[in-house]
């Protein structure tokens, strides 16, 4: 498993994480959501061993990535948002770099390159951003690593590639593997990520399984934000899109993950209450502001 205990990290004197505790179990595809600058990439890099925590401990399957033992690094595959590639053809890359990963599955890699329609006779440096990304994803998923860390994997992928990626990622998940996907493109991966970790102000504020979300929350269209007690509501072109506590009524729509995220960072107390099945606390953002003012701000509850 991946285990962070009282982990502290920051750039310069500014602390990004202070005493962060987190435990991730194999067999899941974790979605890591957070605002820009929340520390998603830093967290993935810390788990991968590319950054060292200032205090606390990080372990990946019982090893400390910060020590950069070859066996530990071979058990972790990290794909950055904008992956670097050498000036080699895929076959040359395979003979030069796959050898560092004893569990690398060459057949799987070839199959993934085929699935992603990667050109085999072209230098990797001549690839487009999306192609480089698909190549790096194929390499990570074929690496045999038990911890796969993907930073914004669907950024830069065209629509068919996103579908392929979802299919490939679902097929790559296994009982002994932990996949962590950091993303802003929630809707691209909504059907895959479970549970969802919400990172805010240097800590994981919510860990939400798809079952919890389905049991406790629903999406609703409201004519006005006051039409029904909502955890969070956002004005759109045709009215209000709201996250509401599930009431068990016929035809309630599944909760939109983007609304869940916005509620988690905007109204965490109300979301926590809705998840606990308790009455929603007053909305501080709505106090003294009418629906028009709230709509102008782009969201309210």
């Amino acid at each position, binding site marked *: 498993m991946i285990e962070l205990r009282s982990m502290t990290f920051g*750039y310069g004197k500014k602390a990004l994480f202070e005493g962060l505790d987190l435990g991730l179990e194999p067999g899941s595809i974790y979605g890591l959501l957070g605002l*820009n*600058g929340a520390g*998603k*990439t*830093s967290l993935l*890099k810390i788990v*991968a*061993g*590319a*950054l*060292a925590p200032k205090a606390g401990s990080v372990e990946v399957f019982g090893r400390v990535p*910060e*020590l*950069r*033992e*070859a*066996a530990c*690094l*071979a058990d*972790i595959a*990290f794909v*950055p*948002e*904008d*992956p*670097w590639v050498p000036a080699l053809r895929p076959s040359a890359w395979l003979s*030069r*770099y796959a*050898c*560092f*990963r004893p569990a690398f599955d060459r057949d799987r890699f070839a199959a993934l390159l085929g699935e992603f329609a990667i050109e085999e006779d072209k230098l990797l440096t001549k690839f487009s951003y999306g192609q480089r990304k698909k190549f790096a994803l194929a390499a990570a998923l074929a690496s045999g690593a038990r911890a796969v860390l993907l930073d914004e994997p669907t950024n830069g992928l065209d629509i068919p590639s996103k579908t392929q990626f979802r299919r490939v990622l679902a097929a790559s998940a296994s009982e002994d593997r932990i996949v962590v996907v950091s993303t802003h493109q929630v809707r691209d991966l909504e059907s895959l990520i479970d549970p969802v970790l919400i990172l805010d102000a240097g800590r994981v504020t919510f860990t939400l399984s798809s079952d919890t979300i389905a049991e406790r929350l629903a999406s609703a269209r409201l004519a006005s934000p006051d039409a029904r007690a909502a955890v969070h509501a956002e004005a759109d072109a045709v009215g209000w899109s709201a996250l509401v506590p599930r009431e068990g009524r016929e035809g309630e729509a599944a909760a939109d993950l983007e609304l869940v995220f916005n509620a988690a960072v905007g109204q965490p107390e109300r979301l926590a209450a809705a998840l606990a099945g308790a009455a929603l606390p007053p909305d501080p953002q709505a106090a003294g502001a009418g629906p028009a003012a709230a709509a102008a701000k782009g969201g309210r509850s």
Partner: protein
Amino acid sequence: MMRLSSIARISPIRIWQLFRDRLLEDGPTAGVGAAVVLALNLLSLLFFKRATFNAGSGQAWGAAIGLGGYLLAASAFKRMHDGKAGTEWILLPAEPVEKYLAALLEYALALPLLLGAAATGLSALLALAERAAGGPGSFAWTPAAAGGLGAWGRYAVGVCLFLAGSASFRKNAFLKTVGLIAAFGLAAMLVAGGGAWLLGRGSGHLSFGAANGTISIDGESLSEAARRAIELLFELSAYVLAPAFSILFGWAKVAEKEARDEVQ
């Protein structure tokens, strides 16, 4: 983080893979360097009927190999400092000590051997061409002409320093390392000069009589034992302490390097 325990996990196979990767990466650069040397010699052959590198005792060959090796060693960890490539390099599944050893093996051992062999061949071919062009063609360079093992030892010490420079400096590692070596040299001279001033009670200077192997303070030669002790101190500093310190320092830099340059 310095980790002596990682030495126990060293894999010769991974070192070979890293070494091979470096060699393949540096091959084109070394090839361009060899082509430039060849072009210079062919031009001088054309105009002066002499291959310029074969002139005199052929010291230019040794200098070119040394300079080439130092330039490559100074860029050994360039990728590690790169914002994007650095993450990939740092996370490549090999121990930091293996990454450092592979670089040391290539630049201190393999490169001078390969470049020495290439230079020997080129020099012999150029000597033949000289003769064919009506020039002297009497000298062909060999590594022995450059000073053999002694010259290699001095070169290897330099490689250790430039590798440490490469691990430390993100940009212009070669020039910064040269600057640092010069600064250390200057500081050593000042210390020696200061010592001589103290020994000479305020008036003297220290002079090394390179021609007859004497060391004198204020014109007064030191005893054989003192001279030998100073020489030993110098040799120990130059050939043991400096490379050992720079290897440990460079390794620590590689082991501690973090991918901080591109973080959202």
